[in-house]
């Protein structure tokens, strides 16, 4: 029997699937729903110091079979309320709940790490890679190794909870960034956030999203994500949460073979509904049985020869 239970950074997971940040997860109740539906852990929507309303307008559009582009603009309740949501939700489940923080300055990342630690999340994911708030905050920290390392150090200084730095494909060398954050003390990396992109409506000659550009997720992102995981696994020893385009059990195993220890799932919730987790879990078991694997751990990094 294939066993889906595994562990990463001290977190025990009954499935390697983790609800990715920003997908139907602004409240604690939403995290619990993902867990009920079969996720091994769940990551809350990125939290900032102050509440944010996000972009107005056309913020998300699905495209070409199973892909999506979004520019939500990081709407969230702000740190104060997010702490309450996490504490209340954690009372109702044994599964690990993971925080996710976002800031425009290194200092604010430190402040958020210190504050969110009060909720005692199982891990803190650090979103240095949102492609959709460029106008407001400039180039994301994930674009350059030094900037990414600076944030990592500051966050580490402010918390004793394991941290995962969320990397971006929108950089010249993701493996260089991965190496830099590992050296700066990261316990884990999440690979990857969305890939910057644009859709244009040719009838009106206007970009479809109100923000003009957005982040690509879903199927179109998968090969980019798998390569990012592969490249990072080559150069770092810390575990990787592979994220991007996981819609089926096969996709999840691809990420694991590239080097992921756990797998984020986002856009699949749109295409397959809230039951995406249980469906992908079942498909993984099926594939593992077919291929003769008994555990998640034995498949990690198998594609590296």
């Amino acid at each position, binding site marked *: 029997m294939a066993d889906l239970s595994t562990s990463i950074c001290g977190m025990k997971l009954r499935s390697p699937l983790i609800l990715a940040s920003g997908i139907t997860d602004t409240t604690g*109740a939403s995290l619990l729903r993902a867990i009920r539906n079969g996720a091994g852990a769940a990551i809350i929507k990125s939290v900032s110091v102050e509440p944010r309303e*996000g972009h107005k*307008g056309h*913020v998300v559009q*699905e495209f070409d079979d199973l892909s999506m582009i979004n520019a939500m603009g990081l709407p969230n309740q*702000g740190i104060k*309320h997010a702490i309450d949501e996490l504490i209340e939700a954690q009372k109702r489940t044994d599964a690990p709940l993971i925080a996710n923080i976002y800031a425009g300055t290194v200092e604010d990342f430190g402040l958020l790490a210190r504050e969110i630690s009060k909720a005692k999340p199982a891990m803190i994911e650090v979103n240095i890679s949102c492609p959709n708030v460029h106008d407001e905050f400039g180039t994301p920290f994930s674009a350059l190794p030094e900037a990414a390392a600076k944030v990592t150090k500051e966050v580490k200084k402010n918390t004793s909870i394991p941290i995962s730095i969320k990397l971006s494909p929108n950089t010249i060398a993701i493996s260089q960034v991965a190496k830099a954050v590992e050296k700066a003390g990261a316990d884990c990396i999440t690979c990857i956030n969305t890939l910057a992109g644009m859709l244009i409506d040719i009838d009106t000659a206007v970009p479809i999203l109100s923000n003009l550009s957005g982040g690509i997720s879903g199927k179109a992102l998968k090969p980019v994500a798998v390569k990012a995981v592969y490249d990072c696994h080559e150069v770092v020893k810390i575990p990787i949460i592979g994220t991007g385009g996981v*819609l089926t059990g096969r996709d999840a195993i691809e990420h694991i073979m590239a080097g992921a220890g756990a797998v984020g799932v986002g856009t699949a919730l749109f295409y397959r509904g809230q*039951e995406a987790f249980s469906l992908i879990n079942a498909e993984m078991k099926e594939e593992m049985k077919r291929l003769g694997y008994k555990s998640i751990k034995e498949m990690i990094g198998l594609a590296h020869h």
Partner: protein
Amino acid sequence: MTLQKAMEMGVATPVKLPIAKIVDEAKDIKTFFFTHLLKSEPGQFIMVILPKLGMRPMSISSDNGAEFGTTICGVGPLSNAMMEKKPGDIIGIRGPLGKPFSGRGNHVVLVGGGYGSGPMAFWAERAIARGMDSKKIHYIVGARTKELLLFEERMRRAKVNLHIATNDGSHGYKGFNIDLLRQVIEEAKHSGNPLDMIYTCGPELMEKAVFDVAVETGTDCEISMERYMKCGIGICGSCAVDPDGLLICVDGPCVNKETAAKITEFGAYHRDASGQKVYYKKG
């Protein structure tokens, strides 16, 4: 769902439609008609998109197969911009979205408040078009005053049982539509032909009062809920309700009595654009 099915469903990009006709319904309330095959069911909604102003959920207030309407109340930037629109102006529309009312019930009462009367009137017209006897439909509409009542003429033409309440007594019963609801339920019970379904759409505290009457009288009911919706397609989570994280844009907006009973925030609070709780003011 299976991936195959998801692929077959394809993707829905917004359409850009010229306004075919605009009808003034009441002060700052207008219905916008579009000539388009929307294929919607009563209770579903669309996203109205205006460049720079945003994308906002609006209920479908009529759809006869050739033309659909949405009834908008001017309350803020986007809805007020709609009030300035003229026939021929182009509007971005995404939909139909969400779960409609079920259509169940052989003797039903529709309770609408404000622009929530739109989906109620649409429900009546669709049911009649499908063969329901108009005398088996009660339409209760309430407003502060006569000028704010919606779709009275339209429902008179549909020949449903019409019950009108105004708070100031300027038209129909003086009082709240909840009082009328109790009366209608009582009368139907005494005449030996009890009501078997209540549908409601309107301000949340009114809906909650209707729900309480449904529980009290043991009548089935369905409610169209409103929550802040940023995407309308079940991806962003802004419309999630406590305690189970149901997404009102895809698991609703129409919910049945059992579901409504489990939503602890129903009638208590909703969330704003950032996700912070906003408590309803009682009374």
